[in-house]
Each structure stands twice: as structure tokens, then as C-alpha cells.
């Protein structure tokens, strides 16, 4: 656990270094992260999928992301997964907790359908308690209606 955290920190540092180094275009950055690392997952696979208002159906773009996640997770079987469901701030607190759970579960079902063992994937809902990004406009809300695949 601690080692993974450390690894993540190192990977993140590399990532930051890679980004701040120069404006070498985005593509080469893919080569700087360790394959199989959390940074690799976030950057080259994509750790989150987005939802429509009040919906928990995985969209087509989200399916592409989850397909990549499934491939990657099959390759690196050492990770346990927690899918975090989130909502935008335009709902009530208690309902959003349930809606976040539904979103996390929709992503989980999709991964399981792609062959990831159910026992590997947990879910948790944060409702509207952990906005990312912080903002009160449609762009921010769209980014907040999300399910994030976190690796442990």
C-alpha cells in the first residue's frame, strides 16, 4: 500500500516534470510514465467517465474509456479497484449520494461485463461532496457528473 503511494508520488513528479519541462507537445509525455503505473492509467487510459444530468447510463465516449480501462486492468492484475461515483451540485445531498452510487455501479457493471472479476471492483459514492473541478457553470457540472476508477 505504502509502496504504491510512493510510486504514485514519484510517477506524479515525473508527470509534472514532463509537463513543465517544455511544450514538447503532449504525445511524447506518454513515453515518460512507467507502464502499469497509476500515472500511466490516468494519463494513457483515462480514469473517469462522464454522465448526463440525472443519468447513470454510460455514454459511448465513456464506453471507449472503460474498454481501455478493462484492457489495462487485465494486463496489470495487481490492482484492486474502487469506482467513485460523483454528481454535480445541482441536486440535493441525499439523492445525489444514491445517484453517485448508481453511476459507480454502472461503470462497475460495464467493467465486469468486460471480464474484470467482480471481486476486484468496489464502489463508493461521494454525491456532490467532492467537486472536481470547483465551479458553478455547465462546463464544471458536466465534469462533475463522473465515475472515477481509483487504483489501490
Amino acid at each position: 500500500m505504502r509502496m504504491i503511494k510512493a510510486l504514485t508520488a514519484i510517477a506524479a513528479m515525473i508527470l509534472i516534470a514532463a509537463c513543465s519541462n517544455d511544450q514538447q507537445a503532449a504525445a511524447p509525455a506518454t513515453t515518460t510514465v512507467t507502464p502499469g503505473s497509476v500515472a500511466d492509467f490516468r494519463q494513457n487510459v483515462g480514469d473517469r467517465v462522464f454522465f448526463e444530468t440525472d443519468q447513470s447510463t454510460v455514454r459511448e465516449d465513456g464506453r471507449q474509456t472503460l474498454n481501455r480501462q478493462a484492457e489495462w486492468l487485465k494486463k496489470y492484475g495487481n490492482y484492486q479497484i474502487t469506482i467513485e461515483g460523483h454528481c454535480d451540485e445541482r441536486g440535493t445531498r441525499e439523492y445525489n449520494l444514491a445517484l453517485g452510487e448508481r453511476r459507480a455501479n454502472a461503470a462497475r457493471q460495464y467493467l465486469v461485463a468486460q471480464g474484470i472479476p467482480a471481486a476486484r471492483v468496489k464502489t463508493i459514492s461521494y454525491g456532490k461532496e467532492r467537486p472536481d473541478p470547483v465551479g458553478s457553470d455547465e462546463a464544471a457540472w458536466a465534469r462533475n457528473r463522473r465515475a472515477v476508477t481509483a487504483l489501490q
Partner: protein
Amino acid sequence: MAAFRLKQSIAMKKLPLRLLILVALALPTAAAAQRADPVYVEDRLNQLQQAISLLTGQIEQLQYRNQQLQQQMEKMQADYEFRLDQVEKGGGRPGGAPAARPTTPSTAAAAPPGAAPPAGAPPAAAAGAADQVYNDAFKKLQDGDYAGAEKGFRAFVQRNPQHALAGNAQYWLGETYYARRDYQNAMTAFAEGYKAYKSSPKGPDNLLKLGITLATLGRKPDACAIFARFAQDYPRATDLQKRRIEQERQKNGCG
């Protein structure tokens, strides 16, 4: 995946929905028999779930609108029946039937009830006060203040059980509950009216409403038994009343 267990509130629509689910599940299974793709199945389930919520929402809306309309119709029907009463009785008899509807407060106060007061009727001043209570209650009923009307009619019947309008008041008391869908109390009030004021001008209506209320409460055999008494109790009922009874008998499948 949670079972598609539907709520009792939409129990009446259960069957068509079940059919829909079966059909929707069967079709893709047949079509996609060769590709047992779990994502595909998951998709279908999600779509079905959404379709069901949509239908549930629409049913709820329709039920609500239906209920609103029914209430409006009942109010209109009460009004209509009242007017018909007035026309039927009013023609040959100046002074009229019991003046249930106050046209204006002054006429109501000025005109004593046309029907002869029964023996031992209260003195005129008290009778005038009783009329006022009745008229106020009736006004409230028309305004849709059912709780206020209930209070007024109940007080009227309690204080003036022998009054010429007591049978009417007892009937309208039942209506105040019926309009609020308090069928248990409506049934009690109509039953009381049937027992105590069988020969009141409102007797036939009272019996009709007692039957309808029983049917609404799911007590169809009792309702049919009540409808069956109509011909015997009220041979001189109006055609409209007879037709209504016949309609109700058919609706409830009375033999």
C-alpha cells in the same frame, strides 16, 4: 440486478408492464442469441428500467389528472342534481322545496322552509337559525370547504334531528367525506342517512351513494344488496335516479 418488482401503487398496470418486459427481454435474446454479450444484456436492462420509470411517471400523472377530473365531475354532478331537484319540485309548488341553496343570504333568511314543520318543531326564531346553519354549511360545500361543511351539517343534524332538512343535511354530510375520499366516514354517514331518513327527499340519492361508497371500499356484495333495495324502497324515484342505479348495478356486476 434488482428484480423488476413494481409497486402496489401501480398494481393495476402491472400486467401490461410485465408483458412489456417479457417481450422486450425475449426479442433481443432471440435476435442476439449468437452474441451472448453481457454489455448488450446490461444495456437492455437499463433501457427497460428507464422505460418502466417513464411509464410509472406517466401513470402517476394520469392517475392524478383522473382524480382531479373525477373530483370536478362529482362537484358538478352534485350541483346538477341539485338544480334538477329544484326544477322537478319547484314547478308546481311556490315556496319551493327545502331551500338548500341560498341564492342570497337575505332570501334564505326571509323564506322559511316550504315543507310543513313536523310536530314539535322549534319556534320560528330557532328554525331561522337552523336554516342559517344549513345554508352556511351548504355554501361551504359549494366552495369546496369540505371540513367546514362537515362541521356545519353535523351540527345541524345533531341539533335538529327532526327538521325537514335533516335528511338532506345527513346526505350532504356524507358527501363532504366522499368528496375528500374519506370513504369509511362517508359510508357511515350514508348508512346513518338510510337508517334514519329513509323517506327524506334525499333518500334515493342517499341510498345510491351508500352503494357507490361500499363498492369503492371493495365491498361489492354489500353494494349490490343496497342497490337491490332501491326499487322496493323508492318505487317513485325519478328516471334519472333509476338509470343511475342500473348503471351502478352493471358496473359492479350485480346479479
